């Protein structure tokens, strides 16, 4: 197969990239020579992959994640690794051990997170396509804050092989792009069955976006416009929803009572899984050689204390606690029960409506340091976590602005109906641009 080389030397003013690959050799394919940015928690053979954590500094994976393999097979140029909240734990990209990414729309504000680098790279026009990962909104939040498109696929639709796990049962790799058409193209390349991921499902994604939504029933849960949602954001999103109505969709307001436990269920689940996933970073295999004068206990405690950032340590401690004997039943088991309720709520609603719509984030992008206490930061994930808990697809598309800052419209669909949420996003995009 004939190959060629692409140069990538971006002027990265917003610190979207942790590292870039100057000269990239590619082959022919659907993405021939298109630079694609890859979030730094996705393994790239021969390219340092750190999850924006000190503890993985210098780690060069010997293998490509399945999605990276698929990108390369289609001729994409892996342009570089994008900044993120350390191990995906955050909503602003401020938790990167290597410094925050700035929002290209307003550099005094965060780009959202945790896939903030990927979103900023697109918003700044450095690359047309990027991969993000979404555990509780990490693709959709930065997409909304930076004014781009981000899709969290159905759980199992995109292989997680090579994605450095934060919360295995919640997260998916997904496409980020400036528009729905490009996001759809990237989704077509990365989706599909992978025998190396036991949770991967055999549903190929072969789709051309269709803007026809006449007769579609769109549910709007009241809870998505509840307390904590900035009224200005709410009104921009409502305007967006009425645009969909004008295009022939039927708008139905509905309720999603399980939203009351969704956030708690999410944080218990993701911290529990994270506490276990991150146990492998004990100083034996990653990072500089251990000090052989110290005992095993001393050296691994020291490595973990110094190598992980504050938020990561907080979540490891929370997860260790929620899995402890005597607390498992009170926390982890309860969280799984709550998760089933969220799933049941979605199933019930999706018997009556085709998709659900609402804001992606309760507010516009924060100023740096604005969310200084962890709890108020966690609360901003309230509208994105339900889709992860239930494993259903959700897209965020740009939907107007509040004082010049982008607002995202979120469309959530039935399990395995990623195509439909893409169609609604596409219809909306077409409606706005006309």
């Amino acid at each position, binding site marked *: 197969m004939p190959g060629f080389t692409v140069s990538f030397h971006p002027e990265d003013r917003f610190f979207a990239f942790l590292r870039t690959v100057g000269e990239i050799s590619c082959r022919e394919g659907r993405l021939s020579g298109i630079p694609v940015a890859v979030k730094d928690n996705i393994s790239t053979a021969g390219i340092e992959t750190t999850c924006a954590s000190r503890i993985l500094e210098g780690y060069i994976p010997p293998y490509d994640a399945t999605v990276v393999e698929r990108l390369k097979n289609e001729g994409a140029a892996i342009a570089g690794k994008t900044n993120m909240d350390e191990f995906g734990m955050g909503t602003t990209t401020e938790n990167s051990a290597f410094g925050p990414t700035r929002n290209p729309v307003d550099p005094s504000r965060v780009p959202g997170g945790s896939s903030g680098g990927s979103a900023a790279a697109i918003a700044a026009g450095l690359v047309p396509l990027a991969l993000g990962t979404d555990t509780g909104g990490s693709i959709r939040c930065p997409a909304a804050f930076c004014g781009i498109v981000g899709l969290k696929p159905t759980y199992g639709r995109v292989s997680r092989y090579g994605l450095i796990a934060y919360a295995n049962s919640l997260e998916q790799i997904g496409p980020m792009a400036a528009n729905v058409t490009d996001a759809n193209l990237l989704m077509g390349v990365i989706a599909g069955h992978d025998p190396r991921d036991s949770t991967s499902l055999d549903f190929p994604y072969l789709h051309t976006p269709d803007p026809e939504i006449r007769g579609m029933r769109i549910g709007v849960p009241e809870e998505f416009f509840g307390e904590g949602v900035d009224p200005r954001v709410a009104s921009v999103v409502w305007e967006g929803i009425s645009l969909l109505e004008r295009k022939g969709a039927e708008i139905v307001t509905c309720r999603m009572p399980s939203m009351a436990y969704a956030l708690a269920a999410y944080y218990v689940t993701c911290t529990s899984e994270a506490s276990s996933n991150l146990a*492998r970073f004990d100083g034996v295999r990653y990072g500089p050689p251990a000090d052989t004068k110290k005992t095993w206990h001393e050296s691994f405690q020291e490595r973990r204390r110094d190598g992980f950032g504050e938020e990561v340590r907080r979540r490891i401690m929370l997860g260790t606690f929620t*899995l402890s004997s005597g607390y498992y039943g009170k926390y982890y088991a309860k969280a799984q029960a709550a998760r089933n309720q969220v799933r049941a709520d979605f199933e019930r609603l999706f018997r009556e409506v085709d998709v659900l719509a609402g804001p992606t984030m309760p507010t516009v992008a924060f100023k740096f340091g604005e969310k200084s206490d962890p709890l108020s930061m966690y609360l901003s994930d309230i509208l994105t976590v339900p889709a992860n808990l239930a494993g259903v697809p959700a897209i965020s598309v740009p939907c107007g602005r509040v004082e010049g800052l982008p607002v995202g419209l979120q469309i959530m669909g039935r399990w395995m109906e990623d195509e439909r949420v893409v169609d609604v996003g596409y219809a909306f995009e077409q409606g706005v641009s006309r």
Partner: protein
Amino acid sequence: MTDTTKVSRPTGDGISFSEKKGTDIQNHTETANVGMNRDFSDDEVIIGLEIHCQLDTRTKLFCGCSTDYRDDSPNTHVCPICLGLPGSLPRMNKKAIEYALRVGKALNCTILEESEFSRKNYFYPDLNKGFQITQYDKPLAVKGHLDIEGDDGEKRVRITRVHVEEDPGRLVHKGGVDRAKYTLVDYNRAGIPLIEIVTEPDFRSPKEARRFLNKLRATLEYLGVFDSEKEGSLRVDANISIQPKGWFDRFGKGKEDRGRVEVKNISSYKGVEKALTFEVTRQKNSLRRGQKLESATRHFVEARGVTTASRSKEMEQDYRYFPEPDLRPLRVSDWADRIVIPELPDARKTRFIEDYCLSPTHAATLTGDWQIAEFYDNLPNDLKTSTATATWVADTLLGELNYRDMTIRGVPLSHFKELLLIRQSGEITEKGAVEVLRSLLDQQKERGTCELPWECIERLGLKVLGCAAPGGKDPVTSAAEEAIAENPQAVADFCKGRSEALNFLVGQVMKKTRGCAKPADVNRVLTGILSRGE
């Protein structure tokens, strides 16, 4: 009773240790009968086992790496999955599940409709992911049994559960654990499939536990899922306590009167009996001294044949189990129904008794090991139906192997089959056959190969000496004539009708023919010559 009471090892080799914390190990031998003021006839020993066996699959449990790592350099049988590299995911080896299902079925277990893998979280350098993928509250198989020869006849041992898990890596200490300045880790073993088999506390003596293990090993080898010869392929933890008689049956597990000791780190069949026997003695001695038996974890030190107290920290370990999110639950009960179990030791024993007319003892011995059973089964029909053959294999062959600390594996069985055939044909004597066997085994043990039986017979000159028709010249006749010529007194005695004289002459001939003549021939030839000479 003084507070410096010591207990000696049951083997009485002079090493003893103090039960009191902080005191040093001291040499003290005369303590076996300290304070015999309690009656122990009312106590019984309660033992339960937890057995880990490596499944003999070609590849590891969650990746395609080869399991044949034993003679290879460290960290050469590894990949992103079994190294637990960030981002790698486990992928279930179906063969391992099939093997485990065979075990579950052979042990008469119920295969759960849905079983699940869980993470057992703990930090240890040999554990590359910081957790072990194992099964917790939904194991593959539960509630089975295996019948063994108990101390009081046939005994049904209940199996609590059978589950699948991954083996961790291995720590290596260059120059030994005490001398090494650092620890190296070899992940070649990481991800080898293990099954854990847990029994109910149904054993009442270390011997029963040992017998169970032998039966289990045979069963696993009959199933073709386990190779007991591979170093480290078996690891056993044992629970042991001494309870007032009947107490355990009345109140059950968890309600014992006295504390239960868990002995970890036993890695051989002989070790199990040794460790348990040591514990029985140790606990009985503690009771004698009026001490309370506390629940504890102890480690078996194979080289010294003793168990030593572990730090209590290990018992407080909280493994924070939760379901493995990267694997789907297993639904394999239908598959299990379709799996056909081969003939197992008990069935084969019955067949040997019925088809080959063997005694139950011989049949039990010959079917107690898959390789031996196969060997025996493949002998020609007239051979395997003869008691002499059964005796020869079950007693002579196995006895000689045992004497040399050898096993049937690595021994060229075709040679022994040939030897049996030669022996049956009468071309060598019984004594000669044993001599050949010993020589072949010695060679095998020393060099890993051995001569063909015929070569050995020729070399040792053990071929039975031919004996021509009366009057002919052959080695037996020549030897007989020599003996007669050399022993006129004995000839004279014989002529006077003293039959002992003939025995003496036979002995002389046997000596001259170095045992290679058949006694019957010697007898016939001698009487022939003597009666002619009269």
